[in-house]
């Protein structure tokens, strides 16, 4: 796979670092994504997922943690 990435770009100095950077971007992106999702609080998830449904109770907008 590596040679495909390098192929026509070999003339760029230090092109070997590109695939490494790509891999890192990927790895960090998905680790961070799953970290966000896993640390999300259950109450919050329940509340947000109910947003499209018209619930009678009007939410109190003063505290971001409660809605």
């Amino acid at each position, binding site marked *: *796979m590596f040679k*495909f*990435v*390098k*192929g*026509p*770009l070999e*003339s*760029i100095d230090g092109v070997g670092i590109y695939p490494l950077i*790509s891999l890192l*971007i990927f790895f960090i*992106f*998905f680790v961070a*994504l*799953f970290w*966000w*999702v*896993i*640390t*999300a*609080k259950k109450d*919050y*998830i*329940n*509340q*947000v*997922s*109910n*947003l*499209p*449904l018209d619930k009678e109770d*009007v*939410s*109190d*907008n*003063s*505290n*971001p*943690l409660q*809605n």
Partner: protein
Amino acid sequence: MELQQFYYDNKIVKKFIIATMFWGLIGMSVGLLLASMFLFPTITDGIPWLSFGRLRPLHTNAVIFAFVGNAIFAGVYYSSQRLLKARMWSDFLSNFNFWGWQAIIIAAAITLPMGFTSSKEYAELEWPIDIAITLVWVAFGANLIGTMIKRRQRHLYVAIWFYLATFVTVAVLHIINNIEIPVSAFKSYSVYSGVQDALVQWWYGHNAVAFFLTTPFLGLMYYFVPKAANRPVYSYRLSIVHFWSLIFIYIWAGPHHLLYTSLPDWAQNLGVAFSIMLLFPSWGGMINGLLTLRGAWDKVRVDPVLKFMVVAITGYGMATFEGPMLSLKNVNAIAHFSDWIIAHVHVGALAWNGFLTFGMLYWMVPRLFKTKLWSTKLANVHFWIGTLGIIMYALPMYVAGFVQASMWKQFNPDGTLTYGNFLETVTEIMPMYWMRAIGGSLYIVGAIVMLYNIIKTARQGSAVEDELAEAAALTRVTPKRIKGEAYHSWLERRPVKLTIFATIAILIGGAAQIIPSLLVDDYVPVISSVKPYTPLELEGRDIYIREGCVSCHSQMVRPFRSEVERYGEYSKAGEYRYDFPFLWGSKRTGPDLHRIGQKYSDNWHLNHMYDPRSTSAGSIMPAYQWLIKDKLDKSDTQTKMRAMQTLGVPYSDAEVANAEKWMLAQGTKIEENLYSDPDFASTYEADKKYASENNEEFIEMRNREIVALIAYLQRLGTDIKAKDLQEISTN
């Protein structure tokens, strides 16, 4: 806690709903007309603006941007106001969005049949319309973001993120793909050529599917499916993963449209790898949509809205499973250029986009008119006719694709092609084209039934144009994260930041693919024998573009034994150096034309254009009789050549100055060649005599459009000969 009263703008939603149904029926009907042209290729003979090549972009643009586009706006304007607990930011922008978009569609419906096209798929519209699209799109985005800023709901629901990503990405794609040099009011040249143009175009084309046909509809799915089922989405956590991974990965997958072409391997393989990965976020979304109905499947049995949505999501699942499979090089080798692709896109368009739109309309309209759906029975009839229509459309096209691709590749034991005549492979699949037309008709009948039902529903109710709502005002809190607040929930109350992050996510993939190809000089190996087109060939090429020949003919011989045997030497990247824009095509209803040059006589081409069935019995190509009669417009030739000069085509100033002479000389040579056919000589002389006897103006053959087209066709693929191939630099 003080409650504020405000009004939802239902009027704008209603307008977009009307436009959706109107343009939907038009777009589908043009599709049906095109489908019938496969069966009766002569039905629009002699009418240039009704010829297949000009109508095909009208069909695709009408369905994508007019039908689906208006459906997106209707759904987004309805759901955003309710999710953000606010009226749209600006009534002026809402209306500018609506009327601007309809004006663009009308402009497209006029200019495309007239032959004004840039020929880049789903971006055919010429430069003035491109600018208008940019303005209207920015108005839409500004209105959406403005509404977010004055919202009364702290957190942005996942649907809103999808809308945001749609706005940002479509803007980026549209602008980068449509950078072009205008030569007249409705003619321009892409600034990219050949391989680079192909890469930019399919980065755009693929992501138009992603960010116009997919992400906005996923947003709509996340709003309307929970609404219709009256339960929250199956997993909100999954929707977060779905959103970020989808937009991050989608943008890389464009090159899978160019497998086995002259695009460098590294870009092809990058596209394949990301396309395979794309299966996971896509199916994550599909599963999330379907599982939202957990415990509510009994409702699906009785509620037509849910029926439509279930088939839509299933269609999405099928199309997004098929997509990654089609990206595998071995599968792509069979499917590409065949009707399999037509089946694939119609599963997406008819099931996913069409059915989700229908479900959404059946849900919204009764609510907008404070009534019940006029007839549930008719909605069910629509559902079943539509579903049958999709099956009747898609299945025959899959069969047609397999059969034809297999025939293209079939060899005799002695090494010759079994079906050496391309037409044999077309005749074989004619029954499939019949079934496709029937399937398409069923689908349209269903849509008409819906139109009737919706009109009846609207009539029995009363429209509430400004709907009263109330919600607490949003008090200001610190822009910083507060203690105990998770990162993503903080991000969700920062709309501008969320937009910026989404933009970064999509730019990474775009930059990694596009920038190297634009910066590295030796990206495309130079072939010294490849020379610019002569002015007459350039004009001929513009006729080829105008008539939409690219709709049915590729110019890309892939490096397969079967294709080299059928068409000639496989295509090299360096051969397209002066092709602004590229014309590789994406479908072979007729044979590839990259090596057509010098294969047939000039007379053959003339006769073939006049009546394709006179040279190729059973051909389904339309006739192009006007090309043989009409005078070639040479008034812009020098402007065109100068535009080419700015793009780096090595025309000398003397060549530009002598363009007229040069064209006349080449045209005269072709006219002389045509005289070798005694039939031509006698008819042509008779015409000439008749004109002079009746004092009519007579256009010499050398000055007619057909001569330019012949010049171009005879040049195609002739710059390299086998002996030159050794000289190609291999870097």
